[in-house]
C-alpha cells in the first residue's frame, strides 16, 4: 500500500543549527503515527514544515501521491493538513461556534448567520461526542475542553492529515480518554494522525506505527508497533540504553530546614502544614487542580497568604514575598517556564545572574567579569547546551532552559530550601536524568528539596517521602519504604473508590 502522507529527504537549517537532515518516511491512510524524539530532535521543525509555517530547505512532502508546496499555513489548510499546537490558538472572548468557524463565518452580505452557525457547530460537536454548548465562551472552558475544540476545528476543516503536538500535556485522564476515543474515530474515518508525545505509554496505546527522530535525523521508523518495546524506543531516542532513569540513592536526612504551619490563601482555604529536612527530597503528588502549585506559590510568597507561617532553619517566620524568601534562602522554580520562569529576550547568562548579581554589583553597578564568570561556571557545571552565554534564552531547548532556571538559584549562595514545580515537564529523557542527578547532588549538599510533579513514576522514583494532595488538602503521606503506586494514586483521587486506568506504570 502506498503511503498517503510521505516526507522525502526533508532538510532544514537554521542559523547555526541543522534542525533536520534528510528525513524520509511515510504514513498510510487511516492510521495513527507516533513522532517521538528528545527535545531539539527536530519534531517541532518537521511539524512546522508540515503546517506550512516554515519551508524546508530541500525535500518534499506529498499527500495522496501529489507533491505539496506550502508557502503558508493557509496552503496547508487548503491541502487538508491541520496542526494542533501545544499552545492553543483560540480566541478566549469568542464563543465555541465563533472559534470553530473563525475566518469562515456563514454570512449573508457580511451579516453572520448565527442560527446556521450554531446549528452546524452543535451538530459537529455532537458527531464527535463533545458535550460543549456552541454558545459558550472559550474562556469559560477547561484546558481539556479547549484542546477538544482545537481538534474539532481541524475536523471541521475536513482535514486529511491532523498533527497533534503533545495533546495530553494539559489534560486530565478523563479528558485524555475522550481525546483517545476521538482519535480512534478519526482513524476509522481514514484520516492520517501524526501524534507527538513524550508519553510513551500513549504512543503504545494509540499508535499503529512510529518514527523516532534524533539530532535532526531519522533514528528509527517502525511501520508497526509489533516488536517495539519501551526500552528499545528510549534507546533509539537517546542513542544509548537508559535502564533506570531515576538513579535514586539513599541519604540521611538532617535537621528540619523548612517548616510550613497552617498556611492558607485564596485558593487554599484549608490550613496546610508540612516539613522538609536537610538532605531530603520531598515529593508532592496530586492531580491537576489539587492545589500543589498553589501551595508552593504561597510558601514562596508569590501569592498573598491569608494565614500561616513558613520557618526556615528554625528561625523567624520567613518572608511573604519572593524577594524576602530569596534572602531567607527559600527559592522556587515555577511550573510554567515560559510564563513566569525565563525572561525572554535576555541572554542565557543574564537569566542565570538575574537574582545573584546583587551580591557582586557594588552600588548597583554590574561587574561584567563576575557575571560572565558566574554564567560560564554554571553553564559548565550544569552542562547547559548553548553556543554561548550571550545566546537569547528562547533559543534553548526546554531541558536547557530548566537548567538555566536551576542555575539561577544555585548562583544564589545561601539557598537552603529549593522548591521545584514540575521540573521535567516537556523535557526529554536524557535531560531528565541530568536534572534528577542535579537534585540529588543538591540534597547531598544539605539542601531541603521539594519536588512537585504530576507524574507518579517520577515522584516515586526520586522522592524520599511523598505528600499527596487532593482538593486543596494533604490527603496522605508516605515514606519511601511504603511507596505503593496504587495506594498513592488512590489517595490522590477525590473519589477514593475510583481507579485510574490511564496512568499505568510507565
Amino acid at each position, binding site marked *: 500500500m502506498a503511503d498517503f502522507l510521505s516526507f522525502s529527504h526533508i532538510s532544514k537549517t537554521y542559523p547555526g543549527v541543522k534542525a533536520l537532515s534528510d528525513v524520509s518516511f511515510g504514513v498510510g491512510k487511516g492510521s495513527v503515527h507516533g513522532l517521538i524524539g528528545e527535545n531539539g530532535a527536530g519534531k517541532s521543525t518537521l511539524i512546522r514544515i508540515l503546517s506550512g509555517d516554515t519551508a524546508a530547505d530541500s525535500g518534499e512532502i506529498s499527500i495522496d501521491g501529489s507533491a505539496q508546496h506550502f508557502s503558508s499555513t493557509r496552503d496547508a489548510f487548503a491541502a487538508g493538513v491541520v496542526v494542533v499546537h501545544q499552545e492553543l490558538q483560540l480566541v478566549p472572548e469568542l464563543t465555541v461556534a465563533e472559534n470553530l468557524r473563525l475566518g469562515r463565518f456563514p454570512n449573508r452580505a457580511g451579516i453572520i448567520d448565527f442560527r446556521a452557525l450554531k446549528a452546524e457547530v452543535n451538530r459537529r460537536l455532537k458527531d464527535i461526542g463533545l458535550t460543549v454548548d456552541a454558545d459558550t465562551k472559550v474562556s469559560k472552558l477547561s484546558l481539556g475542553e479547549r484542546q477538544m475544540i482545537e481538534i474539532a476545528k481541524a475536523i471541521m476543516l475536513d482535514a486529511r492529515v491532523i498533527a497533534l503536538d503533545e495533546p495530553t500535556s494539559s489534560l486530565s485522564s478523563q479528558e485524555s480518554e475522550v481525546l483517545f476515543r476521538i482519535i480512534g474515530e478519526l482513524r476509522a474515518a481514514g484520516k492520517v494522525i501524526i501524534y507527538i508525545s513524550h508519553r510513551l505509554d500513549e504512543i503504545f496505546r494509540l499508535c499503529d506505527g512510529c518514527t523516532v527522530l534524533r539530532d535532526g535525523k531519522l533514528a528509527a521508523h517502525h511501520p508497526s508497533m509489533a516488536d517495539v518495546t519501551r526500552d528499545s524506543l528510549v534507546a533509539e531516542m537517546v542513542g544509548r540504553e537508559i535502564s533506570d532513569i531515576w538513579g535514586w540513592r539513599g541519604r540521611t536526612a538532617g535537621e528540619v530546614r523548612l517548616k510550613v504551619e497552617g498556611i492558607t490563601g485564596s485558593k487554599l482555604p484549608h490550613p496546610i502544614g508540612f516539613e522538609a529536612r536537610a538532605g531530603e527530597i520531598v515529593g508532592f503528588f496530586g492531580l491537576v487542580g489539587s492545589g500543589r502549585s498553589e501551595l508552593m506559590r504561597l510558601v514562596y510568597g508569590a501569592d498573598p497568604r491569608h494565614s500561616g507561617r513558613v520557618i526556615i532553619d528554625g528561625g523567624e517566620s520567613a518572608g511573604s514575598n*519572593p524577594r524576602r524568601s530569596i534572602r531567607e534562602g527559600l527559592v522556587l522554580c515555577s511550573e510554567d517556564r515560559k510564563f*513566569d520562569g525565563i*525572561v525572554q*529576550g*535576555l541572554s542565557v547568562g543574564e537569566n542565570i545572574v538575574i537574582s545573584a548579581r546583587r551580591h557582586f554589583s557594588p552600588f*548597583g553597578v*554590574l561587574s561584567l567579569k563576575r557575571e560572565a564568570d558566574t554564567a560560564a561556571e554554571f553553564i559548565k557545571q550544569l552542562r547547559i547546551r548553548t553556543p554561548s552565554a550571550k545566546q537569547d534564552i528562547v533559543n534553548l531547548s526546554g531541558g536547557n532552559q530548566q537548567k538555566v532556571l536551576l542555575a539561577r538559584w544555585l548562583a544564589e549562595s545561601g539557598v537552603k530550601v529549593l522548591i521545584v514545580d514540575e521540573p521535567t515537564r516537556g523535557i526529554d529523557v536524557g535531560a531528565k536524568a541530568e536534572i534528577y542527578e542535579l537534585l540529588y547532588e543538591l540534597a547531598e549538599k544539605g539542601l531541603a528539596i521539594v519536588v512537585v510533579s504530576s507524574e507518579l513514576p517520577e515522584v516515586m522514583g526520586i522522592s524520599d517521602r511523598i505528600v499527596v494532595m487532593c482538593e486543596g488538602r494533604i490527603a496522605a503521606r508516605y515514606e519511601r519504604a511504603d511507596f505503593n503506586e496504587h495506594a498513592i494514586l488512590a489517595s490522590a483521587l477525590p473519589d477514593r473508590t475510583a481507579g485510574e486506568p490511564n496512568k499505568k506504570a510507565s
Partner: protein
Amino acid sequence: MAFLKRLLLGEQGLLVIFVIAFAAVSIFVPSFLTERNMLGLFQSVVTIGIVACTMMFCLASRDFDLSVGSIVAFTGMVAVMASNASGSIVVGLIAALACGTFVGFVNGTIIAKLKINALITTLATMQIVRGLALISSDGRAVGINDPGFYQLALSRFLGIPTPIWIMLILFCVFGFVLNRSVFGRNTLAIGGNPEASRLAGVNVDGMRIWIFTIQGLVCAVAGILLASRITSGQPNAATGLELSAISACVLGGVSLAGGRAAMTGVIVGVLILGIAENAMNLLNIQAFYQYLVRGLILLLAVLLDNVRSTGLGRK
C-alpha cells in the same frame, strides 16, 4: 547587493542610514554643516533628547508615559514662578525638580501599587498637570525677573551651550545605567517578562515607581532648560512632546512590547528627528509639512525594523 542588504539590515542598520542621511543633507542642503547650524540643531533637540533618555526606560519596562510634555511645561512654570517669588534662582530650581519628581512618583505609585494601566494613568496626569500649569499662571506666560535665569541656557562651556552639555551628560549617564547597572538590566528583565522577574526576586513595583520618578525628575530638568531658553514660563509649552519622545525611542529600536532598548539607538532617533526638522527649516519648507515627514520617517523606521527582524528569522 548582498553586502548592502547585510549592512542595512544588520544590528547597526539605523546608524548606517543615519550616516548616509547626514552626509546627503550636508551635501545638498546649503549651510547645514556649519558650526552655527550644528549647535542650533543640537539646541533644538535638547528637550526631546533629555526626555527620551528616561522614556526609553519606561518603554523598555513595558510602560508608557504620556505626561512628560505637561510635566516639562509645569516644572518650567514652577521654576520661573518660584524664582520670582523667592528672589532666588536656586529655590526656583529646587522647587521645579521637586515638583517634577513628585508627579513622576505619583505616576509610578498609581501604576505599580494600584495596578492601573500606565497609558490611562499618565493620560490622566498629563491633563491634570497641564491644568495645574494653566491654573497657576492663569493661562498666561510668566516672565523671568532675574536675568541670571537666562544664563542657564545661554552660558557656554568650551564654546558649547550648557543645555547641550547636560543632554550629552544624561545620554552617557543613562547609557551606563541601562547597560551596566542592576537597575538597567532589571528594567529590561521586567519588560521581557514581568512575572518571571518578580519570582526571580526583582522588586518590580519598586522598579516601576523609580522609573517614573526619575522620568519626572528628568522632565523637570528639561522644563527648566526650556523655560530658560524661551525666557519665560509657558503653560502651553512642550505640547506633543510625549509623542516626539516616544517616536525617537521607537526610531532607535526600543520595543513598545518591552525588553529591548539601546541608548545609541535612541540618540540616533533623536538626531534623525532633529535633522529632518532642521533641514526642512533651512530649505524653507512650510512647518506644516514637517508633521508629514516626521510621521513618514517613523513608519519607515518601524518597517525597517520589521524587515530586519523577519530577515534574521527571529519572532
